[in-house]
Protein backbone atom coordinates (compact mmCIF):
# COMPACT_ATOMS: atom_id res chain seq x y z
CA UNK A 1 0.00 0.00 0.00
CA UNK A 2 1.47 3.32 -0.99
CA UNK A 3 2.33 5.71 1.84
CA UNK A 4 0.24 8.51 0.31
CA UNK A 5 -2.97 6.48 0.61
CA UNK A 6 -1.97 5.50 4.16
CA UNK A 7 -1.70 9.17 5.14
CA UNK A 8 -4.69 10.50 3.18
CA UNK A 9 -7.29 7.77 3.84
CA UNK A 10 -7.78 8.26 7.62
CA UNK A 11 -7.99 12.06 7.24
CA UNK A 12 -10.39 12.05 4.29
CA UNK A 13 -13.56 11.13 6.22
CA UNK A 14 -14.07 14.58 7.80
CA UNK A 15 -13.86 16.56 4.54
CA UNK A 16 -16.04 13.94 2.84
CA UNK A 17 -18.76 14.35 5.50
CA UNK A 18 -18.64 18.16 5.15
CA UNK A 19 -18.89 17.85 1.36
CA UNK A 20 -21.82 15.43 1.70
CA UNK A 21 -23.64 17.85 4.03
CA UNK A 22 -23.04 20.68 1.56
CA UNK A 23 -24.40 18.57 -1.32
CA UNK A 24 -27.57 17.66 0.62
CA UNK A 25 -28.15 21.28 1.71
CA UNK A 26 -27.59 22.86 -1.70
CA UNK A 27 -29.67 20.13 -3.35
CA UNK A 28 -32.83 22.24 -2.98
CA UNK A 29 -31.60 25.13 -5.12
CA UNK A 30 -29.00 23.39 -7.26
CA UNK A 31 -27.76 19.97 -8.41
CA UNK A 32 -27.24 17.48 -5.58
CA UNK A 33 -29.07 14.82 -3.58
CA UNK A 34 -28.70 12.12 -0.95
CA UNK A 35 -27.44 9.56 -3.43
CA UNK A 36 -24.36 11.51 -4.53
CA UNK A 37 -23.64 12.56 -0.92
CA UNK A 38 -23.86 8.91 0.15
CA UNK A 39 -21.54 7.78 -2.63
CA UNK A 40 -18.94 10.41 -1.61
CA UNK A 41 -18.94 9.34 2.06
CA UNK A 42 -18.92 5.67 1.04
CA UNK A 43 -15.86 6.30 -1.16
CA UNK A 44 -13.99 7.83 1.79
CA UNK A 45 -14.98 4.83 3.94
CA UNK A 46 -13.90 2.43 1.17
CA UNK A 47 -10.48 4.09 1.15
CA UNK A 48 -10.26 3.49 4.92
CA UNK A 49 -11.09 -0.19 4.39
CA UNK A 50 -8.43 -0.42 1.67
CA UNK A 51 -5.69 1.29 3.70
CA UNK A 52 -6.41 -0.12 7.19
CA UNK A 53 -7.89 -3.52 6.43
CA UNK A 54 -11.43 -4.37 7.51
CA UNK A 55 -10.68 -5.32 11.13
CA UNK A 56 -8.77 -2.13 11.99
CA UNK A 57 -11.20 0.04 10.02
CA UNK A 58 -14.15 -1.32 11.99
CA UNK A 59 -12.33 -1.19 15.34
CA UNK A 60 -11.50 2.50 14.79
CA UNK A 61 -15.09 3.30 13.67
CA UNK A 62 -17.38 0.81 15.50
CA UNK A 63 -20.49 2.33 13.87
CA UNK A 64 -19.42 0.54 10.67
CA UNK A 65 -20.43 -2.75 12.34
CA UNK A 66 -23.99 -1.40 12.57
CA UNK A 67 -24.15 -0.78 8.79
CA UNK A 68 -27.00 -3.27 8.09
CA UNK A 69 -29.19 -1.67 10.77
CA UNK A 70 -28.31 1.84 9.49
CA UNK A 71 -29.23 0.79 5.93
CA UNK A 72 -32.58 -0.59 7.11
CA UNK A 73 -33.29 2.57 9.14
CA UNK A 74 -32.41 4.80 6.18
CA UNK A 75 -34.63 2.79 3.84
CA UNK A 76 -37.55 2.97 6.30
CA UNK A 77 -37.08 6.75 6.77
CA UNK A 78 -37.00 7.33 3.00
CA UNK A 79 -40.06 5.11 2.42
CA UNK A 80 -42.00 6.75 5.27
CA UNK A 81 -41.36 10.31 4.04
CA UNK A 82 -41.76 9.39 0.38
CA UNK A 83 -45.09 7.62 0.87
CA UNK A 84 -46.59 9.80 3.61
CA UNK A 85 -48.51 11.67 0.89
CA UNK A 86 -50.95 8.87 -0.06
CA UNK A 87 -51.95 8.49 3.64
CA UNK A 88 -53.42 12.01 3.66
CA UNK A 89 -54.71 11.90 0.07
CA UNK A 90 -51.79 13.54 -1.70
CA UNK A 91 -49.66 12.02 -4.49
CA UNK A 92 -46.55 10.00 -3.47
CA UNK A 93 -43.36 12.05 -2.93
CA UNK A 94 -45.32 15.19 -2.02
CA UNK A 95 -43.17 17.39 0.22
CA UNK A 96 -44.50 19.40 3.16
CA UNK A 97 -44.82 22.36 3.44
CA UNK A 98 -45.90 22.31 -0.21
CA UNK A 99 -44.64 24.67 -2.90
CA UNK A 100 -45.59 28.29 -2.18
CA UNK A 101 -46.37 27.72 1.52
CA UNK A 102 -44.26 29.28 4.28
CA UNK A 103 -41.29 27.19 5.46
CA UNK A 104 -39.71 26.87 8.92
CA UNK A 105 -36.26 28.46 8.78
CA UNK A 106 -33.21 27.69 10.92
CA UNK A 107 -30.85 30.48 9.88
CA UNK A 108 -30.90 30.20 6.09
CA UNK A 109 -31.67 26.47 6.22
CA UNK A 110 -35.23 25.59 5.09
CA UNK A 111 -36.85 22.58 6.74
CA UNK A 112 -38.96 20.54 4.31
CA UNK A 113 -39.73 16.80 4.39
CA UNK A 114 -37.80 16.31 1.14
CA UNK A 115 -34.61 16.84 3.18
CA UNK A 116 -35.62 13.97 5.49
CA UNK A 117 -36.18 11.75 2.42
CA UNK A 118 -32.70 12.62 1.14
CA UNK A 119 -31.14 11.98 4.57
CA UNK A 120 -32.76 8.54 4.62
CA UNK A 121 -31.46 7.87 1.12
CA UNK A 122 -28.00 9.10 2.18
CA UNK A 123 -27.94 6.69 5.15
CA UNK A 124 -29.17 3.81 2.97
CA UNK A 125 -26.64 4.35 0.16
CA UNK A 126 -23.68 4.82 2.54
CA UNK A 127 -24.53 1.83 4.72
CA UNK A 128 -25.33 -0.46 1.76
CA UNK A 129 -21.95 0.43 0.23
CA UNK A 130 -20.21 -0.28 3.57
CA UNK A 131 -21.94 -3.69 3.84
CA UNK A 132 -20.75 -4.47 0.30
CA UNK A 133 -17.13 -3.49 1.02
CA UNK A 134 -17.22 -5.33 4.37
CA UNK A 135 -18.25 -8.61 2.77
CA UNK A 136 -15.83 -8.24 -0.16
CA UNK A 137 -12.97 -7.46 2.25
CA UNK A 138 -13.79 -10.46 4.44
CA UNK A 139 -13.99 -12.76 1.43
CA UNK A 140 -10.65 -11.45 0.16
CA UNK A 141 -8.73 -11.28 3.45
CA UNK A 142 -10.34 -14.18 5.30
CA UNK A 143 -11.54 -14.09 8.88
CA UNK A 144 -14.77 -14.91 10.72
CA UNK A 145 -17.91 -14.64 8.61
Amino acid at each position, binding site marked *: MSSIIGVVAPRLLGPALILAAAIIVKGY*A*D*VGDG*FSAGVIVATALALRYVSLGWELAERSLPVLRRAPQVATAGLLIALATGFAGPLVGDPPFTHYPR*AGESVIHIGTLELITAVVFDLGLFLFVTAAFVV*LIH*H*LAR*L*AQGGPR
Partner: protein
Amino acid sequence: MTLIYALAAGALFGIGAYLVMRRDLLRVVLGVVVISQAATLTLMASALGFGAAPIYPLPSGAISDPLSQAMALTSVVIGLATTALLLVLVLRVVDVFRSQGLDEVAEDEVAQEATLDAEHALGHEDEEAAAR
Protein backbone atom coordinates in the same frame (compact mmCIF):
# COMPACT_ATOMS: atom_id res chain seq x y z
CA MET B 1 -18.92 19.27 -27.83
CA THR B 2 -20.80 16.30 -29.32
CA LEU B 3 -17.58 15.20 -31.04
CA ILE B 4 -15.68 15.36 -27.73
CA TYR B 5 -18.36 13.22 -26.04
CA ALA B 6 -18.29 10.75 -28.93
CA LEU B 7 -14.50 10.49 -28.88
CA ALA B 8 -14.41 10.12 -25.08
CA ALA B 9 -17.10 7.41 -25.10
CA GLY B 10 -15.34 5.62 -27.97
CA ALA B 11 -11.98 5.76 -26.18
CA LEU B 12 -13.51 4.45 -22.94
CA PHE B 13 -15.24 1.60 -24.79
CA GLY B 14 -11.97 0.76 -26.58
CA ILE B 15 -10.04 0.66 -23.29
CA GLY B 16 -12.78 -1.46 -21.73
CA ALA B 17 -12.87 -3.91 -24.66
CA TYR B 18 -9.08 -4.25 -24.52
CA LEU B 19 -9.23 -5.00 -20.78
CA VAL B 20 -12.09 -7.52 -21.18
CA MET B 21 -9.97 -9.49 -23.66
CA ARG B 22 -7.07 -9.84 -21.20
CA ARG B 23 -6.36 -13.15 -19.46
CA ASP B 24 -6.42 -11.69 -15.94
CA LEU B 25 -9.88 -11.94 -14.33
CA LEU B 26 -9.50 -8.70 -12.33
CA ARG B 27 -8.76 -6.83 -15.57
CA VAL B 28 -11.88 -8.34 -17.13
CA VAL B 29 -13.91 -6.87 -14.24
CA LEU B 30 -12.17 -3.49 -14.65
CA GLY B 31 -12.95 -3.65 -18.38
CA VAL B 32 -16.66 -4.17 -17.65
CA VAL B 33 -16.52 -1.16 -15.27
CA VAL B 34 -14.91 1.06 -17.94
CA ILE B 35 -17.44 -0.09 -20.57
CA SER B 36 -20.32 0.80 -18.21
CA GLN B 37 -18.76 4.26 -17.82
CA ALA B 38 -18.74 4.57 -21.60
CA ALA B 39 -22.46 3.69 -21.58
CA THR B 40 -23.13 6.39 -18.96
CA LEU B 41 -21.26 8.97 -21.02
CA THR B 42 -23.23 7.96 -24.13
CA LEU B 43 -26.51 8.41 -22.23
CA MET B 44 -25.43 11.87 -21.06
CA ALA B 45 -24.34 12.85 -24.56
CA SER B 46 -27.61 11.56 -26.06
CA ALA B 47 -29.44 14.58 -24.61
CA LEU B 48 -27.65 16.63 -27.33
CA GLY B 49 -28.29 19.80 -25.31
CA PHE B 50 -26.31 21.58 -22.67
CA GLY B 51 -27.68 24.13 -20.21
CA ALA B 52 -28.66 24.85 -16.63
CA ALA B 53 -29.96 22.19 -14.23
CA PRO B 54 -33.68 21.50 -14.84
CA ILE B 55 -34.91 22.56 -11.35
CA TYR B 56 -37.98 24.76 -10.77
CA PRO B 57 -38.08 27.77 -11.04
CA LEU B 58 -36.51 27.29 -14.46
CA PRO B 59 -33.78 29.81 -15.35
CA SER B 60 -33.99 31.66 -18.65
CA GLY B 61 -32.00 30.17 -21.51
CA ALA B 62 -31.25 26.57 -22.35
CA ILE B 63 -31.85 23.79 -19.80
CA SER B 64 -30.44 20.28 -20.07
CA ASP B 65 -32.69 17.27 -20.66
CA PRO B 66 -33.48 15.59 -17.30
CA LEU B 67 -34.49 12.27 -18.90
CA SER B 68 -31.02 11.31 -20.10
CA GLN B 69 -29.55 12.34 -16.74
CA ALA B 70 -32.04 10.11 -14.91
CA MET B 71 -31.03 7.26 -17.25
CA ALA B 72 -27.36 7.99 -16.51
CA LEU B 73 -28.06 7.79 -12.76
CA THR B 74 -29.82 4.45 -13.29
CA SER B 75 -26.87 3.15 -15.28
CA VAL B 76 -24.45 4.25 -12.51
CA VAL B 77 -26.44 2.28 -9.92
CA ILE B 78 -26.68 -0.79 -12.16
CA GLY B 79 -22.94 -0.52 -12.85
CA LEU B 80 -22.27 -0.53 -9.09
CA ALA B 81 -24.35 -3.69 -8.59
CA THR B 82 -22.74 -5.41 -11.60
CA THR B 83 -19.24 -4.59 -10.33
CA ALA B 84 -20.03 -5.96 -6.87
CA LEU B 85 -21.46 -9.19 -8.36
CA LEU B 86 -18.47 -9.65 -10.70
CA LEU B 87 -15.96 -9.03 -7.89
CA VAL B 88 -17.66 -11.66 -5.71
CA LEU B 89 -17.65 -14.14 -8.62
CA VAL B 90 -13.92 -13.48 -9.22
CA LEU B 91 -13.24 -13.96 -5.50
CA ARG B 92 -15.08 -17.31 -5.59
CA VAL B 93 -13.11 -18.39 -8.67
CA VAL B 94 -9.82 -17.40 -6.97
CA ASP B 95 -10.97 -19.29 -3.86
CA VAL B 96 -11.87 -22.47 -5.76
CA PHE B 97 -9.13 -22.55 -8.43
CA ARG B 98 -6.41 -20.66 -6.48
CA SER B 99 -5.74 -18.61 -9.62
CA GLN B 100 -6.80 -15.40 -11.38
CA GLY B 101 -5.65 -16.38 -14.86
CA LEU B 102 -8.28 -17.52 -17.35
CA ASP B 103 -5.76 -19.99 -18.87
CA GLU B 104 -5.11 -21.69 -15.55
CA VAL B 105 -8.82 -21.82 -14.71
CA ALA B 106 -9.51 -23.39 -18.14
CA GLU B 107 -6.71 -25.97 -17.61
CA ASP B 108 -8.13 -26.82 -14.18
CA GLU B 109 -11.58 -27.26 -15.71
CA VAL B 110 -10.24 -29.59 -18.43
CA ALA B 111 -8.40 -31.64 -15.83
CA GLN B 112 -11.52 -31.86 -13.65
CA GLU B 113 -13.68 -32.90 -16.60
CA ALA B 114 -11.13 -35.59 -17.53
CA THR B 115 -11.24 -37.07 -14.01
CA LEU B 116 -15.05 -36.90 -14.02
CA ASP B 117 -15.17 -38.65 -17.43
CA ALA B 118 -12.80 -41.34 -16.18
CA GLU B 119 -14.98 -41.96 -13.11
CA HIS B 120 -18.07 -42.05 -15.33
CA ALA B 121 -16.45 -44.57 -17.69
CA LEU B 122 -15.41 -46.76 -14.73
CA GLY B 123 -18.99 -46.70 -13.43
CA HIS B 124 -20.32 -47.77 -16.85
CA GLU B 125 -17.84 -50.65 -17.07
CA ASP B 126 -19.00 -51.89 -13.67
CA GLU B 127 -22.62 -51.71 -14.78
CA GLU B 128 -21.87 -53.60 -17.99
CA ALA B 129 -19.95 -56.25 -16.05
CA ALA B 130 -22.87 -56.63 -13.66
CA ALA B 131 -25.31 -56.95 -16.58
CA ARG B 132 -23.23 -59.72 -18.11
